[in-house]
């Protein structure tokens, strides 16, 4: 007996959830199965749409044939990307024609962002304008993004209030002094200083950020002082560290911390710190494990639940079980070693890219392991990369290539299955990392794939 639904969504990240909710809202009966925890926890929690149009040609070819030892790269030889873009929609026409935004249309991005705004509610900001915001990253740069957590709002780089960046001596991700220096080098319109303080030393030298977040959530005592008070005391001596252009000292009006200011009670933690410091407080999105990413994951799964979508995690889809007339009928889901057929009228594949294992590879080639969909790629794996780490990497664009309805195409440019739609990282054609478009591509392709799958299923 197959477990049946109108639409079966395979995957558990931003694209899968967007697709499941979009399909559900078209009236389809939707089920979502995902293998393991999504890659949201590795993401910063910022919702990027399009921040740059990256250069796609090197200034001059670095080599013919195999890589060559010894030849040094001069990054100045490489063209700058176009950007940061103040308006994400405006750059879409200059992306390559095979980019998912070009294939499915900019309206999908707009509607995807609208849906996100509704699902994320108060937890996110940025929906009041089409413009990108620039936010400090933990690398000390600023990054264009379309939506950002409320916890990050006071850190906007277009805000001209003086700021203090706080680092912790026992956290190694950044040094606050270099961070502030790098912001200045970017030409930010505010005065900024960085201070390395002692706070997290009370914990083991390499305590995880989740541990620190918990201590602040519960206001645990550290050497007899509640954690939030202790943190404020550590920062207070640096509130006048900012020196303006004229050499005068300003009291900072906002203070940035690495994103571990509480987990469940973040609003409360920030409010208390702001009160104690007499300055706004913001979080700087960090790398994995990312608390903003984890919080977003919770928010989205709550929304999925509220939408009435059934979901199960921990069970990978092993492959196609039955197909007929160019349509997939059932897939095999591996439930603790036993393969169970799941049937649906339409399927959405949102298993992620190379990181989420939606794409697999060996020395011979790259493949999509669930439906064995066509993945465009150079035959020779030495053409999967270029020599500049931040160059136009072919591997970064790997994935299935969809038609305007989101159906993956075979090698001849025809839809490979009439009832399979793809969304998110498994979709190729975007260089999401350099474009700063990962979330936008997931939202736009998720929305289209979900709607089209519902249409296909309920016809």
């Amino acid at each position, binding site marked *: 007996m197959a477990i049946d639904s109108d639409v079966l969504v395979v995957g558990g990240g931003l694209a899968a959830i967007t697709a499941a909710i979009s399909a559900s809202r078209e009236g389809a009966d939707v089920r979502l199965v995902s293998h393991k925890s999504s890659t949201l926890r590795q993401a910063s929690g910022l919702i990027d749409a399009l921040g740059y149009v990256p250069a796609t040609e090197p200034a001059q070819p670095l080599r013919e044939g195999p890589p060559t030892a010894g030849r040094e790269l001069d990054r100045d030889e490489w063209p700058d990307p176009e950007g940061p873009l103040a308006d994400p929609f405006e750059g879409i026409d200059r992306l390559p024609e095979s980019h998912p935004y070009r294939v499915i249309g900019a309206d999908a991005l707009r509607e995807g962002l609208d849906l996100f705004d509704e699902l994320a509610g108060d937890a996110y900001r940025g929906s009041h304008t089409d413009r990108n915001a620039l936010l400090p990253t933990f690398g000390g740069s600023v990054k264009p993004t379309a939506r950002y957590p409320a916890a990050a709002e006071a850190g906007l780089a277009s805000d001209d209030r003086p700021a203090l960046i706080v680092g912790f001596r026992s956290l190694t991700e950044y040094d606050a002094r270099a961070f502030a220096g790098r912001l200045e080098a970017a030409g930010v319109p505010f005065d900024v200083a960085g201070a390395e303080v002692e706070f997290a030393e009370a914990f083991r030298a390499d305590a995880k950020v989740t541990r620190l977040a918990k201590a602040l959530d519960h206001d645990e005592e550290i050497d007899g002082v509640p954690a939030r008070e202790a943190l404020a005391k550590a920062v207070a001596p640096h509130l006048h560290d900012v020196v303006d252009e004229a050499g005068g000292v300003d009291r900072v009006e906002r203070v940035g911390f690495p994103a571990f200011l509480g987990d469940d009670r973040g609003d409360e933690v920030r409010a208390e710190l702001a009160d104690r410091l007499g300055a706004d407080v913001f979080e700087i999105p960090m790398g994995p494990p990312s608390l903003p990413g984890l919080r977003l994951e919770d928010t989205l799964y709550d929304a999925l639940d509220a939408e009435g979508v059934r979901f199960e995690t921990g069970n990978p889809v092993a492959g196609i079980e039955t197909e007929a007339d160019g349509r997939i009928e059932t897939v095999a889901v591996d439930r603790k070693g036993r393969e169970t057929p799941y049937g649906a009228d339409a399927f959405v594949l949102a298993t992620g890219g190379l990181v989420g294992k939606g794409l697999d590879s060996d020395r011979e080639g790259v493949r999509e392991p669930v439906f064995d969909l066509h993945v465009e790629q150079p035959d020779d794996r030495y053409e999967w990369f270029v020599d*500049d780490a931040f160059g136009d990497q072919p591997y970064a664009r790997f994935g299935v290539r969809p038609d305007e309805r989101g159906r993956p195409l075979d090698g001849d440019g025809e839809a490979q299955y009439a009832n399979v739609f793809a969304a998110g990282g498994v979709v190729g054609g975007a260089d999401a990392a350099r474009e700063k478009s990962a979330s936008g591509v997931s939202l736009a392709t998720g929305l289209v794939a979900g709607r089209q799958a519902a249409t296909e299923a309920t016809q």
Partner: protein
Amino acid sequence: MDHQVDVVVVGGGSTGCGVVRDLARRGLDAVLVEKGNLTHGTTGRMHGLLHSGGRYAVSDQKSARECIEENRVLRDIASHCVEETGGMFVKRPEDSEEYFQEKLEGCRACDIPVEVLDGEEARRREPYLARDVEKAIALPDGAVDPFRLCVSNAADAREHGARVETHAPVTDVLVEDGEVVGVEIEHETGPGKRVHREPGTTEEIRARHVVNATGAWAGNVGEMAGVDVEVRPSKGVMTVMNTRQVDTVINRCRPKGDADIVVPHETACILGTTDEEVDDPEDYPEEEWEVDLMIETLSELVPALKDARTLRSFWGVRPLYEPPGTGTEDPTDITRDYFLLDHGDRDDLPGMTTIVGGKLTTYRMMAESISDHVCEVLGHEATCDTAEAPLPGSESDARMEELMDEFGLRSPVARRSGQRLGSRADEVLDEYDPNPIVCECEGVTRAEVQDAIGEAGSDLNAVRLRTRASMGNCQGGFCTHRIASELAREYPEPVVRDAEDELYQERWKGQRHALWGRQLSQAMLNHLLHATTMNRDGDPANLDGEVDFGAFDAGAGSGPASADADEGGDAGTAATDGGRAGDDATTDGGRAGDNATTDGGR
């Protein structure tokens, strides 16, 4: 008015470092100059085998005897650089029995202690050996960390009064009245430690004698002096696996061939190698077939290698040499012996000696012989003690157990820090509190990174080689920025940024050759972390154009983005708002449309 030193040694590989140590200990005033960081050339690009001599026991018994002798010396004087893994020459069914016997007899003839193992016993010691391995010869091969070895030699030389200059390429060999009288070097960052963004100067170093220990590059230095040194550089690939599939050195027991050795090294295994003559030691192709050959051929010995995760590959260039007129065709047939070329005798150009050929295991012996020669030329009487005097770090056994308590480190971290630092562990680890882990893959703590920065300046590749930070599974994805952040105590921001970019690009170079399977996933994750999350590729600090911050969202409470954005519209790359009306645009649903793109900045 330049001060004249006794000897300038050119080349900071194992030979040059060994020579400068030996000369300094004999009381001569010596300077070592190296164009990159220490081991920049061939020494830092080998598989780390400490030869037992078994490899040469049939073909070249002189080299085999030297190897076993020096193998014993290094276990003693450089214990913190050597891992006594032991080794095996294994025989598969298709490999010649006759050669196996020749190998065995050759080892015995060279005093290399051997033990013959049947297949079962060999697999008991190394469970991942192929089922059909018939038998093996066990012998005392080992693993040596070439970088630690060179750094220790250089440090000892410095303690004995020598000067060591890295990132200081020789730009000319000074010849006056038919005699070499010194070298001209360029300081890429100013004398001393390397610092990014520091302007360089040139310096003439006058010396009574010049030692050319530049290996595969010896011809270039020779050319500057006007003499021919016919080095025949030969490249070889090394492929790094993510774990130790074997804990002893595994050699294939057959006459010669590519892809016949697996060396366990720290947390990894290194597969080697190929042997192809190249024209230029700095510019040669790194080819796909070489990597494939390592995996395909060596998985005949260790089948698990076939599907194991490969981290990266790198190539090294052997400084092979043979006297003019020998005319060996195949580079694998060129002798591995070393040659001392006195240019006074050979080319009628006194004042310079070149050393070429040889191998890392016998570096100390080579250094002794060239130092003897230099002392004779200079009329300096002193005896060599480098075979007995332990290198810094190897004076006493590291106190692992105590370290764990003393520094509150978790056991594997303490053990590995202890191994890396040897007897210096106390002084280094005591320096920093708190002492968090900077590189998680290799368990490298802040104290070690800071210690290496103290020695190497802002050169993070030198820090990497000293500490192994960024050399594990993630290949720097999770730690490049952390290591760079450690520079911020001492160096200003732009130096930190440049050093970070340089290390990240260097890590990428080797990963290109391992870009499939899990390492391709890792590369994508690294790309997402550094480009998406950190925006290091699009950082306005690195871009030419200015950013119009006023054109971006300044928060819901701040009203429409700045009104002057339109006026400055074509000034910077960011001001591409194309006349959009800001907030109102969201309500009309339709895009502001085609005219937005036409004046879009570029």
